[in-house]
């Protein structure tokens, strides 16, 4: 990113393009209110999340060990912990200790609440709906990106468990497509979300949705599921094409541009192996979104997923190793061929590569 520009220079250029007020009408810029720890890198947030979970498990086990909490009363105690964590979080938002304590308390409360729900209700459907309500409330009220990420994951996890428990495996397609649509919607509208100051609430949820999407797409590689994944692959393919169209439009490319045509043809060829490996398309969607929105986390998530996906593909029993090797070779050669054409087209058009 080029930080050599000053705000004055950027505003001046925008004013010339009619996208900003003239400089003389610009008021002073006040300092943004920064949420404590919002600038922490992802690995520190991962460390905080794992540490909070370990602390929550230890504290919950303590309450069970001394008999203060039993399964029947766990729900009540859990809700009290969750509720108490919210004002602690809000009051101590500049103090790391209180933020950690509120995170651990909330995770403890959620764990207790879920244990209590399991002891009270037999129907997973009711539990799923109640957990979804609880986690939604926490996402809205508890100002912590790690907690919002975990809460969103819990909701997805319960819906997935419900699908398996009800033996509605076909609904997995709907869940995957909902997660993919959510990923696209949130990250495509990331700038609008930031302008509305909703990023602290929505973007961690978006990250969880993306993480869940890629995680669930490992299922096609498991041999226990007798599902047809072609439908999921075709809809994900449609989403990829839509994303390519949005990016192309943003760059001023038309559908007649040779690079765009080459990419569309390449995506179509990749659809063939992706009919059985829809995770490939989802990873490409996440990769493109991550690069477009300058989100290194998404880019690395997609890259790591691709490596893991190919490794897991090795152990899938549906195809023989010979067929798998030919699929991978063909996919690899398609991409290398596509690269050749893209480099040629950009060189011929005089665009720098």
């Amino acid at each position: 990113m080029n930080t050599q520009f000053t705000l004055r220079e950027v505003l001046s250029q925008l004013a010339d393009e009619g996208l900003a007020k003239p400089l003389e009408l610009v008021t002073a810029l006040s300092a943004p209110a920064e949420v404590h720890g919002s600038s922490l890198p992802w690995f520190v947030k991962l460390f905080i999340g794992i540490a909070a979970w370990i602390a929550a498990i230890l504290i919950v086990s303590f309450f069970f060990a001394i008999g203060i909490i039993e399964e029947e009363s766990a729900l009540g105690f859990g809700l009290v912990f969750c509720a108490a964590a919210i004002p602690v979080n809000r009051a101590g938002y500049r103090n790391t200790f209180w933020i950690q304590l509120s995170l651990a308390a909330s995770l403890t409360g959620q764990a207790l609440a879920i244990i209590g729900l399991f002891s009270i209700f037999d129907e997973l459907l009711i539990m799923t709906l109640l957990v979804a309500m609880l986690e939604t409330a926490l996402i809205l009220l508890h100002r912590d990106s790690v907690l919002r990420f975990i809460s969103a994951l819990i909701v997805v996890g319960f819906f997935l468990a419900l699908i398996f428990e009800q033996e509605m495996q076909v609904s997995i397609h709907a869940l995957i497509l909902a997660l993919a649509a959510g990923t696209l919607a949130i990250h495509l509208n990331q700038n609008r979300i930031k302008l509305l100051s909703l990023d602290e609430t929505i973007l961690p949820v978006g990250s969880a949705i993306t993480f869940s999407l890629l995680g669930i797409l490992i299922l096609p590689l498991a041999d226990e599921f007798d599902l047809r994944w072609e439908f999921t692959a075709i809809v994900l393919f449609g989403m990829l094409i839509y994303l390519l169209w949005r990016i192309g439009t943003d760059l001023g490319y038309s559908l007649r541009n040779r690079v765009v045509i080459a990419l569309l043809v390449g995506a179509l060829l990749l659809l063939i192996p992706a009919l059985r490996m829809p995770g490939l398309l989802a990873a490409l969607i996440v990769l493109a979104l991550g690069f477009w929105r300058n989100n290194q986390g998404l880019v690395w998530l997609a890259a790591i997923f691709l490596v893991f996906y190919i490794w897991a593909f090795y152990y899938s029993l549906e195809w023989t190793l010979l067929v798998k090797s030919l699929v991978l070779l063909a996919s690899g050669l398609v991409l290398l061929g596509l690269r050749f054409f893209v480099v040629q087209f950009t060189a011929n058009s005089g665009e720098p590569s």
Partner: protein
Amino acid sequence: MNETDGLELPATQKNLLQMARQGMLDLRGYERALKIIGFTPNTQKWNRFLDVLLLVLGAGLTVCGIYFFFAYNWAEMHRFVKMGIVGVLLLGLVIATSRLPEEKLPAKITLTVAGVLIGALLAVYGQVYQTGADSYKLFLGWVILMAGWVFVSKFTPMWFIWILLIDTTLILYWDQMVSWRSPQYSAIQLWGFAINGLFVLAWELFSGKTDWLVSRWTPRILSLINFYIVTAAATIFVSEGLDDDPYTLATSVVWLVFLPAMIYVYSQKKLDLFMLTLSAISLMTVFTTWVANQLDQSNFNNDFVPLILGLLIVGQTALVVTLLLRVSKSRKEVEQ
């Protein structure tokens, strides 16, 4: 801050967002501003991204396809055909590398793939000529044969693969040649630490003077392995004592020196929050284990131990995050 100061601030994404939130820019203006400063990639960056993505993904899938192909049962194929195919591929990649501009990414990728294919060739050779040799010899041969290309490649991913091959060779050698009952078995900790540590040291010393040694993730991942080694040893030592295992004791002593050194270097000399986070996790792990062990050995009521440990973890995490933020802020102020 007066009006003039505000507009002379660098046009970062955060400052532009603040302007937009204050109503000075609408959504279109904000998105256009992000393009101007290069936060949103332009055509040039997209072309470069596609170039790298298609090359890496295409080469990666192709190499995986080749490996899957060799994993398939080739009992029916003649041995010379098997080795010939890999040999021809290897030769083709070497020729391609020699013809491509050596400073460009495609040449480096083809050389890396060729290096990886050396392993495939050795594996096929070992499959065809069943000598009963230990598997560590395959990896040792791979390391030796690949070394020359690694040194000329000036390509950090290739170096990283090579270092991992060295680690794998070491683990396999120890597993196959040193009895687990032998007192020397746990010496692998020190050897592994020494090898990875030397590479990290060399990386950090030369990275300031070498333009292609820009990746932070290679030394970070190697340091992660080293932290695992020394932390595991120190944790075992504080919980079990291990008077009869001098190598684990020695590795624990290494931890005592390594940890403060890492904290000093990566907070005062070369700010790296990842290394500092690893240091903090290591210290927390050993300290919490020690506390748990002390509580277990004392007459303290065991029912309260989980609560104490849970609160201890919360407190330590809060302290670590506060310190990381403080170090990060103070170093940025120094750099400004």
